């Protein structure tokens, strides 16, 4: 599988305010690029070994839960090439459903930063709310609970792994044309 970004061991040390600030700025910039649909610039914010994963939900009884698994159904279970494939669709000039363009607002909040045993990798939790408005009057709001690994590469933060957990059991819309 493409999940090459390994899980990391948490380190109980306290992240510096400077690091927290850098992480926040990274996530806000990412949100702005998404809203601007500057997808190539967004791809530049990812490591080449990114695993970008949004598993399908299944409503189960507490007595027999089903843990998300990368071999199960997923909205996204992507490596870098897969994400680039998705982006390339919007650049073909024949992507009819994106013309007129979708309007979106990514709001990022609840950011937590954890150090790990690797001084260059941090676990970052955040909550993203995406408001989407498209066509004449269609509205859709999505919430994604994100668990990221950010990696410092040559002094620059990059997204190395993201798991997005959505709250909707049935996805309440015809398309998922925004990244969370």
């Amino acid at each position, binding site marked *: 599988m493409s999940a090459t970004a390994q899980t990391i061991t948490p380190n109980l040390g306290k992240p510096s305010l400077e690091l927290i600030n850098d992480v926040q700025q990274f996530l806000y910039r990412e949100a702005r690029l998404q809203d601007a649909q500057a997808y190539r610039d967004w791809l530049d914010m990812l490591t080449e070994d990114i695993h970008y994963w949004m598993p399908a939900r299944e409503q189960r009884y507490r007595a*027999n839960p*089903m843990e998300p698994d990368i071999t199960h159904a997923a909205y996204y279970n992507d490596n870098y090439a*897969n994400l680039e*494939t998705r982006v390339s669709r919007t650049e*073909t000039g024949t992507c*009819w*459903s994106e013309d007129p363009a979708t309007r979106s607002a990514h709001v990022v909040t609840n950011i937590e930063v954890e150090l790990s045993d690797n001084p260059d990798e941090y676990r970052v939790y955040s909550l993203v709310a995406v408001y989407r408005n498209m066509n004449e009057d269609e509205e859709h709001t999505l919430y994604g609970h994100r668990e990221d690994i950010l990696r410092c590469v040559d002094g620059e933060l990059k997204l190395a792994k993201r798991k997005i957990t959505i709250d909707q059991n049935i*996805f309440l819309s*015809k*398309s998922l044309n925004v990244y969370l």
Partner: protein
Amino acid sequence: MDMRTRNPFPADYHDYINTDEGWVDRRIFWEEEIYQQELEKIFARSWQFIAHDSQIPNPGDFVTTYMGEDGVIGSRDKNGQVRVFLNSCPHRGNKVCFADSGNAKRFTCNYHGWAFGNDGSLLGIHNEHIYEGYINKADWGLREARVSNYKGLIFANFDSEAPDLETWLGDYRWYLDMLLDNEEGGIEFLPGTIKSYVNANWKFGVENFIGDSLHAMWNHDSGAKAMMGGQSFPPAEQEGSYHGSANGHGWEFATDSVADIAILGQPEVIEYYESIRPKMRERLGEMRAKIFGSLASAAMFPNISFLPGLGTFRVWLPRGPRKMELRVWTIVNKNMPDHIKQMVNKGTMLTFSPGGTLEMDDGENWEGNTQTNKGTLTRQGKLHYGCGSTSRIDHPEIPGIVHQGQYNDANQLAFYQRWADLMNADDWDDVPQRNEPRFAGKPTR
């Protein structure tokens, strides 16, 4: 003035379609009255998909789904037999199961604690002594459907008068074997379901898969280019390509073996199918070995669809005349190596899920197809379904109603004809047989 006074609803549902002139009345995609009739005449009487054996392999395993708007539980009982029953307590009507899937010995209603076994029988009631003398528990189980299985696909039907599953499928079994039986071991469903709502009439999903290859080249050009390194779909080729249908189930296809699988963007999956192609030829014959994997799409009446080779399998569950729930799974050959199965899994999610490079364009169309009919004048119009109206042929090898050329409206019209046949019929003797089955009483492999 009332719309119905000016433009009355025909009593004969065949008046909503015209197979000779090639048109369909838009009202079948909008009107509540017609939808209610669909629930009664089609969904309450048709064999419908519940699950695949691989999704509920063990005693106690269950899934919940819908037949029409009736919620049902499909459960494997302690003897290994699959039972399907209404997900509604016969006491006050609440659901007895709120999970999508799982394993349970019993389903207990939250309201008063009526508990049902995974065979649907009423096992017990909370504080049952109060009921002594007032209930015969054997009479108050969950209403059960007939259940039948074709090569791993589990179907259910609440109509005791309906023909058996083999008759219902008819010569479509010849086609279905390409999906379910192209290799020893058959197929399996990979775990997990993607469920989504589309604000469209359920029939638009079915008719798209049953025969609409034409839209792919235009509508999915961006998806094709993304998945195939900048290439568009090959030009429309009517030679060596067909529409085939039986009993309203259809399959449109070319005979070049590889095109659909190529859309997955996973070359090793093509290599896998090529490696089993010689055995497939022995198993299914030359013609079906050439069809499987070609540019193709298929649907079964009333609401199942799949792309053979590419590996997406789905149902379109009606949620009113203007909304449906789409449930999507990935199917693979059971004997595939695990890493190939995962390539198919990744490929189907990348193409045919709500975020898929192809699927994202479909939902937009079907919502537009449906919602424009809000307009009174718009709804009075007809839709053109006349492409290929004179292309019917007899083919020595391909059974059912066959048309030359996969860019065609033939399967769509065959689907709507079956739709009208069932909408009209009060009993099964009134349902016409539109093609003489070649394989009645005979195996198709």
